[in-house]
């Protein structure tokens, strides 16, 4: 198992209802697989939201097929709107 930290920002935090959470996921799970786990766990997250949002792993942009390394910090958030 792989113990990871999840962060949510902006609309994703509003939907998830939490700023962060920790969870254990099977080794070898990719971002896509984690999205599925989160959709099951958080009733207001769905595949449309998770397909549209951005993901980072250890503070780098990562994509559905990228594997999640041990102890990673993963964040989910909408396209950025700073400035």
């Amino acid at each position, binding site marked *: 198992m792989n113990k990871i930290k999840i962060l949510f920002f902006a*609309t994703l935090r509003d939907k998830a209802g939490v700023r962060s959470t920790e969870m254990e996921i099977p080794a070898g799970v990719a971002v896509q697989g984690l999205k599925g786990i989160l959709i099951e766990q958080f009733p207001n997250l769905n595949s449309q939201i998770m397909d549209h949002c951005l993901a980072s792993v250890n503070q780098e*942009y990562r994509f559905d097929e990228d594997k999640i390394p041990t102890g990673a910090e993963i964040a989910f958030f909408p396209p950025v709107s700073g400035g």
Partner: protein
Amino acid sequence: MTFPLITSITEDEIDLNTLLDAITLTSTGAAAIFTGMVRGVTTRDDPHETTYLEYEAYKPMAEAKMKQVAEEIRARWPVVEGIAIVQRIGRLYPRTPTVLIACTAAHRDTGVFDAARYGIDRLKEIVPVWKKEIKPDGEEWVEGEYHPRPGE
């Protein structure tokens, strides 16, 4: 030689004088600075009023991505000397500067204006900061459009 670089997510006022001084070398003759402010009144596209904006950031990633923007600027305009990239977060009212990109160079005809322009464009693409807009009749998250590709 190491050139000055400032990248910061801050809740404090953006002090242009201090930031400019910090990226000015003895070889510097020109600075191009961009600042963005909260508009209280927007007339283009969807005309509306804004009471205030509430900014938040994924701070460590945002500062790392600001450093990446600075590296991209240096790769494109090697003549750029100092770079400052600052995003203010928290509750910000109309007329308040929210973001600053400043680039210095020996001379003004070196691309230093383009470098600052590139910097703000890239910040708005890849630096993880979001704003919620509070209007007289409600509030909503402002959503960006850019989806970074692998390697960004």
